């Protein structure tokens, strides 16, 4: 059984200044009441989370940078100095006040190109994460909750998807489709990257399903879907959020890879497209560094910021990491 140490941790949470209202009715909690629960959980978990979140430098930095980029992607095109893709100036111009990132081989304004590209990259990242998340969560929950033969079938299916060489599949599909959009690319990425989410969710569901409170929910007449949504999913909320962030970043990266290889959307432009064009038209050999560095750097910063935020979130959610 526990001793004072547990009592101590369980009384730890409510940090000064954390909004308390609604968590504990005023005066209703003589929490000092000595040995508390066996395990340490805080009274206001959600508030506690916020308290640590705003104090986590990695999270604040990562999210801050990401928000700037997202804003740039959303409103940037309205402020873009030139229309994208159009040949607005002489080629090979160095970066200047007029053309922030110079011009391309064709005389396009690289800064404007970049602003428009961000939007597509984020769109693909979001779509990929959303599709992979929804499919992965769905399959993971069902397999983990039902178990038995259904689990075995879904597991087998998951392994099959893992083993499909998505690049080859994309080339094959590309051969049949005349044109495809950023939307298609996002969905394609989502549909090919969900398996690891599904496997992790399945494993966690499996563990949580054996907890007593799940049995108690069943004894209360609750049905499977309700239990999964109300009792199991919230207990892995932190994990789900982290997974979504990782998926978001990886989808954007994958998209850049596809685009760079020329497998990207046939309409619109993206960071990968810019890199692809720069490579095709010998940007490197011609020392047009302003053509390929901005999209590459933007991509790197966008994904890195997400990863940093992810590490920060990890620390916020995991008290063990938080202490150090």
């Amino acid at each position, binding site marked *: *059984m526990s*001793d*004072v140490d547990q*009592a101590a941790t369980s009384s730890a*949470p409510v940090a000064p200044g954390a909004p308390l209202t609604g968590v504990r009715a005023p005066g209703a909690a003589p929490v000092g009441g000595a*040995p508390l629960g066996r395990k340490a959980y805080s009274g206001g978990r959600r508030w506690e989370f916020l308290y640590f979140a705003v104090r986590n430098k990695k999270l604040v930095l990562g999210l801050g940078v990401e928000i700037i980029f997202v804003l740039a992607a959303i409103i940037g095109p309205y402020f873009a100095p030139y229309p994208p893709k159009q040949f607005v100036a002489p080629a090979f111009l160095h970066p200047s006040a007029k053309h922030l990132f110079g011009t391309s081989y064709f005389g396009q304004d690289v800064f404007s190109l970049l602003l428009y590209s961000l939007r597509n990259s984020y769109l693909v990242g979001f779509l990929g994460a959303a599709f992979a998340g929804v499919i992965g969560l769905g399959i993971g929950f069902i397999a983990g909750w039902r178990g038995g033969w259904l689990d075995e079938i879904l597991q087998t299916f998951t392994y099959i998807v893992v083993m499909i060489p998505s690049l080859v599949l994309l080339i094959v599909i590309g051969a049949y489709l005349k044109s495809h959009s950023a939307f298609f690319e996002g969905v394609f990425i989502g549909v090919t990257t969900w398996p690891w989410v599904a496997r992790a969710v399945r494993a966690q569901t499996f563990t949580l399903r054996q907890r007593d409170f799940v049995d108690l929910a069943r004894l209360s007449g609750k049905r499977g879907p309700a239990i999964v949504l109300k009792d199991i999913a919230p207990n892995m909320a932190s994990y789900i959020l982290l997974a979504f962030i990782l998926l978001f970043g990886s989808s954007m990266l994958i998209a850049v890879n596809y685009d760079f290889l020329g497998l990207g959307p046939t309409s619109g432009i993206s960071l990968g497209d810019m890199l692809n064009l720069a490579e095709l038209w010998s940007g490197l050999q011609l020392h047009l560094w302003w053509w390929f560095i901005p999209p590459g750097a933007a991509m790197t910063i966008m994904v890195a910021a997400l990863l940093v935020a992810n590490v920060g979130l990890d620390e916020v959610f995991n008290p063990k990491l938080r202490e150090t």
Partner: protein
Amino acid sequence: MSLSVRNLRIAYRTLRGDVQAVDDVTFSVADGEIMGLAGESGCGKSTLGNSLIYLEGRMRHLGGTVELDGKVLPISDDRAMNRHRMRDVSIIPQYAMSALNPTKKIGVLARDLLKSRGTKLAKVLPEFRRRVALVGLPDSVLEMYPFELSGGMRQRATMVISTLLNPSLLIADEVTSALDVSNQRAVGELLTEFRDRGYVKSMIVITHDLSILAQIADTIMVMYAGKLAEKADAGTIIDRPLHPYTQALLSSLPEVGVRYEEEELTGIPGRPPSLLDPPAGCRFRDRCPFAFDKCAEEPPFVELLPGHQVACWKAAQDVAGSAEREHEEAAR
């Protein structure tokens, strides 16, 4: 005198302030003595036990001294303590069963542990094997992973490993709590056997289960809310406890043979006080059926009868009263 603890005070740091888990505790354990340390969860008994060997990051040594075999143990100095761990003081932790690293074989675990204490496993291997056999484990456990062993087997394996260097003092923290009765008996008997064979000189057995202590302990010390309540030899505590808390604790235990129809037992109403802001005076006052105005003052932990220390005004009164009566009778 093997172990002598004087005025020991240990606190836990929490965000809401310090919790005084061990408050001014003085006691000693003789050579060859098995001392039982009993109390409810949260009374500080585990903290006391742990503080003698390892102060966690959140624990702070506020005062008092610990002497083992005449030498002062530097309990607040983690590095200096390293020399004493396993050699002089050793512990079978509360969750020994889950404390074992699942990816290491038992033999490897023992080797690593000994290495960190500057000893080669090879030196003690024959003795190790002998003791493994003694506790009834097959020789092959050295080549097994913790998950291959059942709870009772793991408990015995940790027992053997932690006493390999024949420490002077062994702290056994709730070693029987998670076991079935037959394993409880086996482990309990092994503890006394280890003492009898001289593998350990003396022992502190921490448990909430007084009936186990009645079986194996020579003396029993009862803690309540960070303070010592009562200490005497085991028979006295079980048969003639003086502290109301000990009495209540004992009377709330159903024994085999007791049925509700014949004898309805009662628990102790209320909960122990918070150690964040402990009340002045006797800490058991609120739950004590005998509390009177004197209890607002803190009772000293004193020897009321030979070898029987109690911290209770009521008990002091009773003992003094009966001594007086005897005196009068003798005079008459």
